[in-house]
């Protein structure tokens, strides 16, 4: 069979990225221009600054990717683009670039949902086996998605309030860690013990999550200890928060695996880089004897490799957009 090459572009938040992937499985080249050093001066991503950086970087990133791949755009089969969800001004830069390339080179334009991208980051590791359960954990998402085949997404449940990554970042800010605080909590937690008592979030029969109560409990506890003039053990507080947050995720994931006869559990999204979560997921895989796939660290954060990988499977089922494709700040995974 002829090989299929997809050029992917991603600009949904603060990373401008371009990648070429072969047959949805093999990375040929990827370039990522991260703006994290700019946004950390503001304690978080500033949308207008992000858009301004994307427009500066877009052609440079695409050119470097083609140079690394030693390919010309004429040789790719289709152009995959993150159309949403994300920051609208950021999304638009990648979208206009992808549409223009699609016109000039007469290549099909394949719209990719950002979360489908995170899910398909796993196809770069191992061939997916169905029925599959995707645990999507990021700054904007905490979801359990059932897949009976490629591109058949069925949401079992999701967060009712804060996303897991959002809760991590807020807790980090309260205990005085610099943005982005999530990875720093993960590192601190490894040095401490879960000595602080925190409430278990949403322990019910659904596949939903809730992290805002847990986040508030940490904030209140921190405040109370400060008022009493007691010294806060940051590592222990981080460990306490992380233990409760992760066990909530693991409990619901385990229930879904058993109820749906899952063969393959995959983890998707930026929080898949969390070492505490990776450990627990691997333990769960051994316990239930199912295949576990977790993307390499470099595929956990936003990148175009995963967009090109997802784009391959979308292209194979005929998902092609016209040049009036627009960006969407929010959209259900489908």
């Amino acid at each position, binding site marked *: 069979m002829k090989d299929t090459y997809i050029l992917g572009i991603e600009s949904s938040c603060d990373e401008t990225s371009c990648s070429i992937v072969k047959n949805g499985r093999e990375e040929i080249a990827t370039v990522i221009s991260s703006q994290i050093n700019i946004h950390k001066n503001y304690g978080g991503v500033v949308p207008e600054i992000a858009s301004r950086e994307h427009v500066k970087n877009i*052609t440079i990133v695409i050119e470097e990717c083609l140079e690394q791949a030693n390919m010309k755009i004429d040789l790719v089969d289709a152009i995959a683009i993150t159309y949403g969800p994300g920051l609208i001004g950021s999304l638009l830069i990648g979208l*206009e670039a992808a549409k223009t390339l699609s016109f000039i080179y007469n290549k099909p334009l394949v719209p990719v949902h950002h979360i489908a991208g995170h899910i398909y980051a796993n196809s770069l590791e191992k061939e997916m086996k169905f029925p599959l359960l995707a645990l999507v954990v990021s700054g904007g998402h905490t979801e359990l998605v059932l897949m009976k085949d490629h591109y058949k997404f069925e949401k079992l449940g999701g967060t009712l309030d804060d996303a897991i990554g959002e809760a991590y970042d807020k807790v980090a800010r309260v205990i005085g860690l610099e943005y982005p605080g999530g990875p720093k909590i993960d590192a601190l937690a490894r040095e401490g013990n879960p000595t602080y008592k925190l409430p278990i979030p949403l322990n019910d029969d659904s596949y939903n999550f809730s992290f805002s109560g847990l986040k508030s409990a940490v904030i209140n506890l921190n405040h109370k200890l400060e008022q009493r003039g007691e010294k806060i053990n940051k590592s222990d507080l981080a460990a306490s928060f992380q233990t409760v947050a992760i066990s909530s995720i693991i409990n619901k994931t385990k229930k879904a695996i058993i109820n749906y006869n899952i063969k393959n559990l995959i983890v998707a999204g930026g929080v898949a880089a969390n070492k505490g979560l990776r450990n627990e997921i691997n333990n769960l895989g051994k316990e239930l004897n199912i295949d576990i796939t977790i993307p390499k660290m470099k595929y956990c954060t936003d990148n175009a490799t995963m967009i090109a990988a997802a784009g391959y499977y979308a292209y194979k089922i005929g998902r092609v957009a016209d040049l009036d494709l*627009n960006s969407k700040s929010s959209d259900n995974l489908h």
Partner: protein
Amino acid sequence: MTTLYIDTSSSYLYTGIVKDSKLLTEVQEELGHNLSEIALPKIVEMFDKTGLKATDINKIIVVNGPGSFTGIRVGLTIAKVFAWSLNIPITTITSLEAMAVSINNDKLLVPIIDARHDYVYAAIYDNDITILKPSYIKLESLYNKLNKDYLFITNDLINLKGEKCEYNPDILKIVNKYVDKKDINPHMVNPEYLKLTAAEENKLNGS
């Protein structure tokens, strides 16, 4: 010489193709919030209408601001990707230059765009001489710089003292005037916002 002109710096799409000093086709349409969706399809329509291919273009002139931040980026991204991928010369002009070129008048020409909170983006031209380069300026301060008869050019609803006229771009005239302007490396083609982001301003002001 076949030139593609693109201006998406307002809620209007102004685009056209000029070949050897003849306007082959143009689009002047208010797109408002649909700008990002429709801008490229409208540009493609011009190619379909004229039978030209993307590879027939050998120069791009794009308006790089000031105006709507998002709007500027839509047209600019299309233009720089176009120029980069076809390896053709590209140059930028400001929206205010385009506005002034489109009007024939011996008065001081004052193209002006609403920047909100009593501020405007404006420039002052006396025939071919620039009295005030494109600036983000308080409207009151602008009047102090007008030392002879003047004419405002604007499509915005700004309360102005003095004569004003609407902006209807003369794309042929704009292209003819700027077609030989110095080319820029497509990677370096960037917006001229003339204004920092709110976050940057707050940081500078220490708040």
